[in-house]
């Protein structure tokens, strides 16, 4: 639904959008029903000369079922919402598909900086590429990110990916995304982080494999530029527990 307003550029964006639509349909039904009944009762029972009110305590069984039946239906709707909500959450935040690439994201007042593997495809080697404000990723590759803060609490949000994760000083938080549409998208900080909070913008640039390889060559450590641009090998799978250490 909100693709009209904002692009969906990661694999899980649609699952969040569909959950939104499901909830909208269910609560929309209850909202409209409740408002219609409310207005209908107000209109029907407006004061009329000579019509007495009815003395009802609400304890009467045959009347109380007008409360209990909708009530049971509300509980059913809750279940219909909870199950997919937890499934979507599980897929995005708990189950992490194996990483094809890992990047490190540093938040600080008031900028994003990134550490990406160089042409050798490994982090913490000499040819790592460090950028400020711009994250370059390959389309259709599963990325793990290791999120850290150097000062206060920030939040790493890419609306087009439907991604949001707070960054906490003193911890490394891992998450994943898999971009599936080439383009340039905003990175926002969504946790109040001080004076420059609104200026803490970044961009994620989703490129084809060729473009990304070319970018790697251009930006890798010049002294290592003669290395062949080998295709990135899949690093060993990092589970969340390991990454947290």
């Amino acid at each position, binding site marked *: 639904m909100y693709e009209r307003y904002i692009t969906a550029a990661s694999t899980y964006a649609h699952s969040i959008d569909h959950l939104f639509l499901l909830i909208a349909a269910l609560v929309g039904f*209850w909202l409209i029903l409740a408002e219609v009944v409310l207005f209908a009762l107000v209109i029907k*029972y407006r004061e009329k000369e000579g019509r007495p009110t*009815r003395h*009802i305590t609400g304890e009467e069984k045959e009347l109380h079922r007008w409360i209990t039946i909708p009530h049971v239906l509300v509980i059913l709707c809750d279940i219909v*919402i909870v199950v997919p909500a937890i499934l979507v959450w599980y897929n995005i935040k708990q189950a992490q598909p194996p990483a094809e690439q890992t990047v490190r994201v540093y938040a600080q007042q008031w900028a994003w900086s990134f550490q990406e593997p160089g042409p050798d495809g490994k982090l913490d080697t000499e040819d790592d590429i460090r950028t400020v404000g711009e994250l370059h990723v390959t389309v259709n590759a599963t990325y793990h990110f290791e999120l850290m803060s150097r000062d206060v609490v920030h939040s790493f949000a890419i609306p*087009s990916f439907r991604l949001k994760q707070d960054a906490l000083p003193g911890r490394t938080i891992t998450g994943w995304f898999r971009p599936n549409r080439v383009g340039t998208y905003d990175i926002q900080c969504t946790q109040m982080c001080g004076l420059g909070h609104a200026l803490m913008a970044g961009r994620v640039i989703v490129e084809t494999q060729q473009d990304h390889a070319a970018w790697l060559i251009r930006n890798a450590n010049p002294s290592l530029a003669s290395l062949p641009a080998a295709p990135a090998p899949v690093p060993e799978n990092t589970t969340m527990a390991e990454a947290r250490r």
Partner: protein
Amino acid sequence: MSEQMQHAGHEQAGQDHAEPGFFLKYCWSTDHKIIAMQYLFTGMLMAVIGGFLAYVFRMQLGFPNHSVPGFGLVTPGRYNAVVTMHGTIMIFWVAMPVLIAAFGNFLIPLMIGCDDMAFPRINRLSYQIFLLSAIVLLVSFAVKGGAFGGAWTAYPPLSSNGAYNLTPLGAVLWLLAVALEFVAFLLGGINFTVTVMNSRAPGMKMFDIPILIWMIVLATVIFMASAGPLIAGAVMLLFDQTLATGFYDPQRGGDPLLWQHLFWFFGHPEVYVVLLPAMGIVAEIIAVFARKKLFGYKSMLYSTWGVGILSFVVWAHHQFVAGIDPRMANVFTVTTLLISIPVAELVFLYIATLYGGSIRLDTPMLWALGFMAEFLIGGVTGIFLGSSGTDIYLHDTYFLVAHFHYTFVPIAIISVFAGITFWFPKMFGRMMNETLGKIHFWGTVIPFNVIFIPLFITGAAGDQRRIYSYAQFAEQSRPALQHLRTTSTIALLVMLAFQLIFIFNFFWSMWNGKRAGDNPWRSTTLEWTVPSPPPHGNFAELPTVYRGPYEYGLPGRADDYWPQNAPN
């Protein structure tokens, strides 16, 4: 000063005494009605300030980087301070004092049939500390560095370290003001609970207590039970700020998440602390204006208890993406959706009360129905945020802002207007003007929707909150979204303009309104059996209660209402 103290002591003795002077009568009184008025007027004054702050930042968002008339250019630092103070003031210095302290103080003794609160001097102390807290907060605007700008949730290490927030003095004063305010409401809360449990008129059994009084008592119990952890957290934060301890500093073994848990363990019940009195006010009004017994008084009460208890186990839904263990989100999604069960029950019972009634749409009833119609929207949009899956995207967007304003505006604005227009005759002995009241109602409720419906859309489109300018973000600075923001700002200007009508109506009616008489709405509860305004000591003779509070439309009686204190 000591002479004044002696006079005050004399007055409390309740003996015959000369009419006290203005200061003793209105500023140093222990009379629950005067203290209620002090809270009401302080709260209204703070609402004016909070409204002005909303005007400032909405102008910046609607018309970015233009100087705001009456304020000046909104720089990023000022913007942060203004949104932080707007949130803090509206919750702690408007909703709390008006809904709980003003209505609670005025109505508890009158509705349960006693002469004053159980601890009148603690009551006076409570207001004085509250006033001090408001002054401390307002002073923080003037100190070096300006007012605190780290959001009303004050997450450390931003809030705990002056090098990060750049408002070292403002942050300390903000925290002190909140702490003082809590002291005031703890004193008030214990007073309310004790009074209702011990000072009821003879014959008033537990299920004869008007639902509003029940809801105020439950709200204060929830408040007192949830405030402890936050006060402990606030002391640690104060130490971090001033003594350089490291409770929330990871470099020294602390943990910033600790504050978030302590804050939201209080912060979520707080929503219900202000919601319950608001729902109580609405219940009293719909019973009177529909001439109906409340549908299922006991179910209502049990649902309220259910809401109160559940409200303690949902706090982490504010922290789904805060870096907590992701498995915890599943637990809190379930508890959060569970709370929809008692709340839905309450809403159904309220709507069912209208069935078979004889509804008069006077101003208080318009506000009460407005509360129900609008609060429904606030309630259902909460499901999107309580569901962990959608919250990943919607958290901290304007969708969230629109959602909680659809709960807090009905609570702190709409129900308060309902309460003021309903009890105004009792407070001041005169009626408010109905025509002006209705103009004010429509002039508030329609713009309110025009302010916040566009914000649901900008939020779903990715607008984050607390951003003074979206110029940095290509996706957010599209003209279509800016049009929505401007629409919202213009609607706010209209809504604020209509509040002038209320202020005029309020003060004009206080002296020039039609005389009200004891019971202008033909209501059954005890506060309508005393003169308007009630004299010192309230009841000439303490009443005896014979029945529950909502006996309307009983067949075979001449009047369609049967007061609680009428023997037959």
